[in-house]
């Protein structure tokens, strides 16, 4: 098991945003986490990355990381692409990528440029001036620069035009094919489930349904609430 989360609870002051969830990601898997706005998906990812304090167990690659510091995790191959991309707006594309390689100390962006030719064209451009889709690609490329084992993606298709959404999902598929394990948070439930091996459905801080992606695509409740189909 690459990632094992047990009885995870996260509080914002008095608000219990994540209410004791269990979640597992096997080596090489693509797992998606879907759910409505405010369900607690981002909160879960942030807790895994130690951006938020939590109770419960989080084991990564066999060791407990609840006491780890945020900046120690990329070194171990656990990297998140945050919601809203989180690029460094005043750094150039190149510099953003270099920050992804910061822990390894060796900047070799060519491989990312091969996947994202658009970024190569824009390499000396300040990242804040990129389009939304380009920024999302930069955020993913930057995370790949760390050579992750487990990639956490928080709504990579958010706010993008349909063409770009398709492109982003294609990229996610490619990354998974390379052997990177992925935990994908998405609002685009159908696309995410069509791509993933397994899925979890989160509702107000708890896991409501989980199972193989195929079974979730056929689940009556999931169909009605997240896939926009009337229950039959």
């Amino acid at each position: 098991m690459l990632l094992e989360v047990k009885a995870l609870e996260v509080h914002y002051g008095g608000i219990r945003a994540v209410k004791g969830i269990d979640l597992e990601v096997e080596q090489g898997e693509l797992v998606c986490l879907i759910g409505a706005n405010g369900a607690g998906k981002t909160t879960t990812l942030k807790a895994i990355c130690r951006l938020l304090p939590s109770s419960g167990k989080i084991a990564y690659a066999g060791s407990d990381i609840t006491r780890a510091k945020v900046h120690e995790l990329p070194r171990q191959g656990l990297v998140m692409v945050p919601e809203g991309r989180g690029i460094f707006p005043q750094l150039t594309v190149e510099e953003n990528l270099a920050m992804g390689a910061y822990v390894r100390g060796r900047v070799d962006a060519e491989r990312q440029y091969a996947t994202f030719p658009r970024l190569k064209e824009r390499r000396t451009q300040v990242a804040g001036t990129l389009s939304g889709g380009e920024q999302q690609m930069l955020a993913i490329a930057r995370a790949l620069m760390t050579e992750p084992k487990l990639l956490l993606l928080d709504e990579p298709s958010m706010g993008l035009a349909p063409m770009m959404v398709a492109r982003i999902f294609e990229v996610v598929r490619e990354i998974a094919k390379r052997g990177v394990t992925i935990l994908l948070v998405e609002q685009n439930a159908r696309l995410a489930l069509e791509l993933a091996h397994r899925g979890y459905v989160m509702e107000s801080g708890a896991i409501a349904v989980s199972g193989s992606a195929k079974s979730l695509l056929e689940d009556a409740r999931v169909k009605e609430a997240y896939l926009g189909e009337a229950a039959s």
Partner: protein
Amino acid sequence: MDTFLQQMVNGLTAGSVYAVVALGYTMVYGIIQLINFAHGEVVMIGAMVAFSVINLLVPSGLPPLAIVLIGAGCAVPICMLVGYGMERLAYRPLRHAPRLAPLITAIGVSIILQHIALMIWSRNILAFPQIIPSRSYFIGGAAITTIQIAILAICFMLMASLAILVYRTPLGTAMRATAQNPQVAGLMGIDINRVIAVTFILGAGLGAVAGVLFGTYYGIAQYTMGSVLGLKAFSAAVLGGIGNIPGAMLGGVLLGVVEALGAGYIGDFTDVCAWGVPLAACEGGGTFILFGSNYQDVFAFLVLILVLVFRPQGLLGERVGDRA
């Protein structure tokens, strides 16, 4: 003598020192949005430590340049330690507190440092021993001394080195990344506590050198010297756009020049006799000057007020298109 040219030379010299001090304010502000009011005190400690060491070594008969270098060599690490200490002990615990808390703490740290200096060195003014023979060179009606040349050379070298560090190295890029988005910088594996500490240490090291140069230029150092120098450098940082590194350099140099030209001409402009007022003092080519060059400090604060009123973001602050 050509007043304009001479005041330009003097202004550039003082201004390059302001610029180096201003970098300490602007780097810290850029990375944690804190106005570190104690930075002026770090500069003062640099000057005091260096002067003490230099005065101690004068009887040893070492070559003067070696003595000055040893003095500065003691001041820099001590100031770096002070800079690191204040970040670690005073500011880091308040990193997530409301912004007023660290600001007030900075004022407190400034007072504490000034009083520690008072306890160590008392109120005495330390004098810089005249061990380096100063020669003057003349360029088009203005004199420039060897000390002024040295100050200009050292300050511009420091600024160039810092610019290279910040804009051309991974550490510098990490500093800028942390300034723009500390949370994501952490997610990329950057230890932001370390980067912030390094920022304080660099600023303090620069401040130490600036303190030694400033003290050497005016020949004296005292425990109160950090207040006015710090405020001027802070004004310079605001003039350039606080948080902006090239801005601090530009602001410092400009402020030095404005101040020197102001001091050079304020007497002529406020000479009541020149206005044609028939006073007894004016008879036989006399003068009656309202504000003499001792009002020179006023200009820095005048500049600060004007900037805050007309261009609060500073000359180079907040470039368009930098926001995502």
